[in-house]
């Protein structure tokens, strides 16, 4: 009946870790997509976008099989740690990164591509290395896109259901997230508990997203002047 705070804490942790990981992973991928001139670039773009199309349960099933001992990846992990990645928090993180990848990479890449190429060229002629140019010119100018990508992947992970259902195994404190908790409550006719939990999730995510977009707006108006 009462709200299960453990699941909230767990889901929040998952969302924070996943969006942080996507920042690290997404930046180079987005950079490559925005600036590469390879002819087969569109293939990579398509692959990155695939998780949007695949039903989460299907994606979850593939992840489950990939983590299991019948796949090379699963075998490698088991030989390393002695257990499979499924039904663990790490497994959820992995599945969620895959699932939310396009929600980080696409806004990143779009904002990188929107940076005035003259500024990038100017930075290069002034002797800055590509890495320096990225951190001093490209990244600051694409801050709104970066914030949007982070916020989207965070929100997407908070509400994630299918992948968690398929690979989580519903273990309290390990893989039972808020969305699974709400589903269980509805199935068990605990509508009041489901409503309360859903409302809290909604309120929490609204506040967080409103905060992020609010800050984002300010940064955007100040940014270019600096």
């Amino acid at each position, binding site marked *: 009946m009462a709200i299960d705070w453990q699941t909230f804490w767990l889901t929040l942790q998952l969302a924070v870790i996943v969006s942080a990981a996507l920042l690290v992973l997404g930046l180079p991928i987005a950079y490559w997509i925005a600036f590469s001139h390879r002819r087969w670039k569109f293939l990579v773009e398509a692959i990155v976008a695939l998780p949007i199309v695949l039903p989460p349960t299907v994606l979850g*099933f593939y992840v*489950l*099989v990939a*983590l*299991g*001992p*019948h796949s090379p990846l*699963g075998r490698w992990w088991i030989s390393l740690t002695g*257990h*499979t990645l*499924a*039904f663990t928090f790490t497994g959820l993180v992995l599945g969620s990164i895959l699932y939310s990848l396009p929600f980080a990479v696409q806004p990143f890449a779009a904002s990188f591509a929107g940076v005035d190429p003259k500024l990038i060229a100017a930075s290069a002629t002034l002797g800055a290395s590509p890495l320096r140019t990225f951190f001093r010119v490209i990244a600051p100018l694409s801050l709104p896109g970066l914030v949007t990508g982070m916020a989207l992947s965070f929100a997407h992970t908070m509400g994630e259901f299918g992948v968690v*259902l*398929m*690979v989580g*195994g*519903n*273990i309290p404190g390990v893989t039972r997230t808020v969305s699974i908790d709400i589903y*269980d409550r*509805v*199935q*068990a*006719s605990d509508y009041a508990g489901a409503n309360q939990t859903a409302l809290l999730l909604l309120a929490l995510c609204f506040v967080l997203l409103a905060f992020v977009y609010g800050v984002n707006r300010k940064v955007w108006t100040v940014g270019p002047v600096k």
Partner: protein
Amino acid sequence: MKWVGWIICAIVAAVSCNGSTAQAQDNNGQEIVVAAAADLSSALKDVADRFEKKTGVKAKLSFGASGALTQQIENGAPFDVFFSADMDYPRHLVDVGDAEAGSLYQYAVGKLVLWIPADSPLKLEQGMKVLLDPSVKKIAMANPQHAPYGRAAVAAMKHYGLYDQVASRLVLGENVSQAAQFVESGNAQAGFVALAHAIAPGIEGKGRYWEVPADAYPPLAQGAVVLSKAAHKKEATEFLEYMKSKEGKAVLEKYGFSLGSR
């Protein structure tokens, strides 16, 4: 850009065509929608095929956890007949007026088995004790909150006094089929599934099973009801009658259900 228009035309045509055929079938009453517990997935497909050959009525099947399906029915899901994995959900539906009181029928008694992958080194002759083997890191079962097989599994583990020892290693599938999937994919080393699942075509050979003795858990009497809001009540009743026939019963037995004593 002309081709965009053509594609849209084609899609619209395809969709509307599809819609009209569905309607035609609807009008003839040649189609019923059956909601059924996950443990019936192989058995009912067989039953539905035979039923269609015999009567010309096509039965569309929708599988899920009994609790989940009950929720859907209460909220207006367009099913005609419901096969639960227990008696409580159908009884509840009768009580709230969503199912026809006179139609409640115990069609089978399900059997719970402990199931391990074929290549597992575990010795099933030991029965329930294999769960204590250190190589068993995860034990899959259906969620006892809304799946009867999950409740049976909990009862069985408690019966053998193992529940507290293995509780931390349990992983819950949304229904009994998903529990089997956890084992089949190798992520769980053992799992509680329906006998129907362990001997289903395509699954057989992928694992070995140990039948949990019937005295270890409350009987999994499974009931079916015709739903009050059924669009095709007559055909739905026929389908249920077919399940009661000798032929229907034989199919159920073939797929690992006992018919039980009533």
